[in-house]
C-alpha cells in the first residue's frame, strides 16, 4: 500500500489553472490599459465618451488590482494547493468524496463571487479600501470561500499519510490563518440597511472605524495582504516546484525553519510603513520602520535557500526556461524585499511615498516574483495534470526573455519617475517658494509612463504566449509516460 504510487486527482487544480490563465490575461490587460491611460489620457475613452464612466482610470484601477491579486494570483495559489497538497501529504483527493465536493464548491463559489465582483467594481460599488474594496455581501461570500479552503487544507491534512508537514504546507496554513484574521477585522462594517431599512442601496455599509483608526486597520490589513497573498503562498510554491523540477534537495532545513518563523513574527509589525508621517502616533510609525528593516533577513532567507538549492546546477538553469523563471522570481523577491525596507526608512519614505517608486516596488514584486512563480507553477503542473509534454520549450524561453524585459522596463521607469517626482514636489526655489506647480511634476513623467506602458505591454504579450503554450499543451502536444514526469518537465522543441 505504502509503495504503490497514488493516483492523484487534479480536477480542482485543473479548474483553478484555467482561471489563472484567463484572469491573468484579463487582469493584466486592464493593467496595460491603465498604464496607457496615464501616458495618454485619451485612452480613458477608448470605448467612446458614453462608456467612459466604465472605462476611466479610477473605475478600472481597483478592477486591475483585485483581478490580478485575487483572480490571477489566488487561482494560481489554489491550483498549486490542490496539486501540491495531495502530493506532499501523500493522499489523493479521490479518497474523499467530501473533500472533492468541498474543492469543487470552493472553485465554483469563488467563480460566482468573481463575476459579481467584476460587475460591481465596474459600476463603482466599492468601499474604497485598497485591496479590500468589496461591500459586505461580497465580504460574506469571501468568508465562505475561505472557510471552504480551510476545510480543504485541514481535511486533507487530517487524512494524510505523510506525518510530517512539508515546508510548503507550513506556508499554506499561515496564508489561510492570516488572511482570515485580516479580512474579518478590516471588513468590520455595518450595513446601513440594518439601521435604515429600505433607504438607499441595500448593499451599502459604513466602516466600524473612523479616520486614523480606519487607516491603521486598513494598512495592517493592506501590508499583510501583501505578505500573505503575494508572499507566503508563493514561497509555498517555490519550496515545492524548484526542488521538484530540479531534482535537488532543499539546501537547509534550519534556514527554512528560521526564515518561516522569522517571517511570521516580523511581518505583522511592519504595516506602519504605509502610514509614515501620517497622523498615527510616532511610535507606531517607528515600529513599522524598524521591523521592516529586520524583515529583510527572513525574506532573504527563503530566497537564499532556493538559490543555494541550485548549487552546482547551473547547467539546469541554463537549459530550462522553467527553472529560469524560478531563479528570476527569487531574484526579484530579493530585490523587492530589500527595496521595501529601504522605502520604509522614514527619510526615504518622505520622498518615495505617494510616488511611482512605490508602484515600481509593487510590480517588481508582483510581476517579477509573484507572476513568474505562478507561471512556473503552471508550466510544471500542466504536463503532470494533462499527461502531455509542454508544447514548446522555445516559446517558453522567448516568453521568459520578453517578460523579463517587460519587468525591467516597468520598474526602471517607475524608479526614475518616482525619484524625479518626489524630488520635484519637495523642491523650493531661491526665494523659498515651491519650485514646481503640480502639473509640472506630472508633465515630466510622460516619457516614463510611456516606457512603463511598453514594458507592461511586453509582459502581457508574454502572457498570451503563455496561454497559447498551455492551450497547446492541454490539447495537442505529445502524450507522455508517467516515467517522464519525475523531475525535469518534458518539453517539446
Amino acid at each position, binding site marked *: 500500500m505504502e509503495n504503490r504510487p497514488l493516483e492523484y486527482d487534479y480536477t480542482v487544480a485543473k479548474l483553478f489553472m484555467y482561471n489563472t490563465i484567463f484572469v491573468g490575461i484579463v487582469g493584466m490587460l486592464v493593467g496595460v490599459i491603465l498604464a496607457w491611460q496615464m501616458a495618454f489620457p485619451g485612452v480613458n475613452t477608448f470605448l467612446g465618451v458614453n462608456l467612459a464612466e466604465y472605462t476611466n482610470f479610477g473605475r478600472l484601477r481597483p478592477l486591475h488590482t483585485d483581478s490580478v491579486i485575487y483572480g490571477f494570483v489566488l487561482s494560481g495559489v489554489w491550483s498549486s494547493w490542490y496539486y501540491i497538497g495531495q502530493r506532499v501529504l501523500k493522499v489523493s483527493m479521490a479518497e474523499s468524496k467530501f473533500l472533492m465536493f468541498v474543492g469543487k464548491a470552493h472553485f465554483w463559489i469563488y467563480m460566482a463571487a468573481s463575476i459579481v465582483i467584476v460587475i460591481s467594481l465596474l459600476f463603482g460599488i466599492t468601499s474604497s479600501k485598497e485591496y479590500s474594496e468589496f461591500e459586505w455581501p461580497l465580504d460574506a461570500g469571501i468568508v465562505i470561500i475561505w472557510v471552504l479552503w480551510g476545510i480543504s487544507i485541514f481535511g486533507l491534512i487530517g487524512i494524510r499519510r505523510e506525518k510530517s508537514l512539508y515546508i510548503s504546507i507550513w506556508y499554506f496554513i499561515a496564508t489561510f490563518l492570516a488572511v482570515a484574521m485580516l479580512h474579518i477585522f478590516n471588513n468590520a462594517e455595518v450595513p446601513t440597511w440594518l439601521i435604515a431599512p429600505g433607504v438607499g442601496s441595500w448593499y451599502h455599509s459604513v466602516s466600524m472605524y473612523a479616520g486614523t483608526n480606519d487607516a491603521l486597520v486598513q494598512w495592517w490589513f493592506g501590508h499583510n495582504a501583501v505578505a500573505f497573498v503575494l508572499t507566503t503562498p508563493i514561497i509555498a510554491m517555490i519550496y515545492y516546484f524548484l526542488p521538484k523540477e530540479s531534482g535537488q534537495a532543499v539546501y537547509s532545513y534550519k534556514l527554512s525553519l528560521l526564515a518561516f518563523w522569522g517571517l511570521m513574527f516580523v511581518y505583522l509589525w511592519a504595516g506602519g510603513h504605509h502610514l509614515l508621517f501620517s497622523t498615527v502616533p510616532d511610535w507606531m510609525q517607528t515600529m513599522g520602520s524598524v521591523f521592516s528593516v529586520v524583515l529583510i533577513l527572513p525574506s532573504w532567507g527563503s530566497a537564499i535557500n532556493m538559490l543555494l538549492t541550485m548549487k552546482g546546477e547551473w547547467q539546469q538553469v541554463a537549459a530550462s526556461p522553467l527553472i529560469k523563471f524560478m531563479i528570476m522570481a527569487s531574484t526579484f523577491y530579493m530585490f523587492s524585499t530589500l527595496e521595501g525596507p529601504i522605502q520604509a526608512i522614514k527619510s526615504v519614505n518622505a520622498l518615495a511615498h505617494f510616488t511611482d517608486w512605490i508602484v515600481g516596488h509593487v510590480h517588481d514584486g508582483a510581476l517579477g516574483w509573484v507572476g513568474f512563480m505562478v507561471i512556473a507553477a503552471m508550466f510544471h503542473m500542466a504536463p503532470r495534470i494533462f499527461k502531455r509534454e509542454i508544447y514548446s520549450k522555445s516559446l517558453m524561453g522567448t516568453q521568459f526573455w520578453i517578460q523579463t524585459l517587460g519587468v525591467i522596463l516597468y520598474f526602471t521607469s517607475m524608479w526614475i519617475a518616482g525619484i*524625479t517626482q518626489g524630488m520635484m514636489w519637495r523642491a523650493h526655489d531661491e526665494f523659498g517658494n515651491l519650485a514646481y506647480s503640480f502639473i509640472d511634476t506630472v508633465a515630466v513623467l510622460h516619457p516614463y509612463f510611456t516606457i512603463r506602458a511598453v514594458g507592461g505591454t511586453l509582459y502581457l504579450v508574454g502572457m498570451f504566449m503563455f496561454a497559447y503554450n498551455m492551450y497547446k499543451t492541454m490539447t495537442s502536444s505529445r502524450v507522455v509516460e508517467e516515467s517522464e514526469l519525475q523531475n525535469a518537465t518534458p518539453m517539446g522543441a
Partner: protein
Amino acid sequence: MNKTVLAAIAVIVAMLGATYLAVGTAGGIGGDGGLVNKLAVLGAVVLVIVTTFVVTKYVRQMQNDTASGKLADENWDGIGEYKNELPFGWAVIFLGSIVWAIWYFLAGYPVNSYSQIGEYNKEVTVHDVKFNEQYKNMDDETLKEMGGSIFIVQCAPCHGLQADGLGGKAADLHERISAESVKHVLMNGSSNNLLGTSMPMPDRNGLLNTNTNALITDAEIDAVSKYVAGGLKATEGADVFAGACAACHGADGKGMEMVAPNIAEMSPAMIDMVLNHGKKGAMGTMPAFTNLTEVQHKAVDAYVSSLSKK
C-alpha cells in the same frame, strides 16, 4: 571576467545611470532637498548594488560549487532536505538586525522622544529665519521675480501660466477688467471687499446718471462697460462715466480711498484685497489666499500689477 559578473556590472551601471538622470531632471541632489534627497538616492544605490552583488554570489555558486550535506530522514514527494547549517553571513546579519532594532528602541532613538511635528516646526523656523534675513529689503525686480515664482504654483491653475485667464475661466490679468465683468457688476452690484471694508457697489437700481437724471439704461451700461474695459480712453461712454461713476471712482477712474476702488488700472492695493478676501464676479469665484505670508503677498501684488503695464 565571467559573463555573470559582467551582466551584474551592466545592471548596476544601468540603474545608477538611470538614477543619475532622475536626479538631474529634478534639479540635483543638493539644494534644499537636503538629507531626504540624499538618503533616497543612497537607498536606491544600495538596493541595486547589494541585490546584484548577493545574487551574483549565489549564481557563481551554481556555476562552480556542488551541492552537499546530510539529508534529513523525511522525503516529500521525492523532495529531500539537507541538514546544512545556516549561511554564516545571513545568520550574523539577522542577529545583528535584531540587536540593532532593540538598540534603536531603547537607546538610539528612544520611542517617546521623537516627534514629527517637532521636527516640522524646526524645519519651518530655520527656513523662516533664513529667508526673512535674506529678503528683508527687496528691490522691485526681486519682488516681481519672487511674485512670478509664487504665481506659477498658486495662481496658474486658474489664471493660466500666461495669466490670460484661460479663455474667460478666470480674470485676464493683463488688463484691468473686461467689459462683461463691468456689466456684471453694474447688473448685480459687487461686494468683494475691494476696499477692505464691506462697502458694496450698488447695482443698476442705485446708479443715477446725473447727465440724464435717470437710472442708468441698458444702452448706457453697454457703453460704459466698454469704456471702462478699454481703460477709460475712448470717447464713447465717457459721458456716462462722468455722470454716473466718477462721483465715486473719480474722474480718471483711479478710485478714492474708502469710497471706491481704482478701476482704471491694476494696483497692488487692489490685488492685495483680492488675495485677502477672494472675489466673486462674472467669471466665477476666486478663493482668498490667506496661507501666503505678507512678503509673498507683496511679491504677488508687484508681479500681477506689472503684467498690465505694457
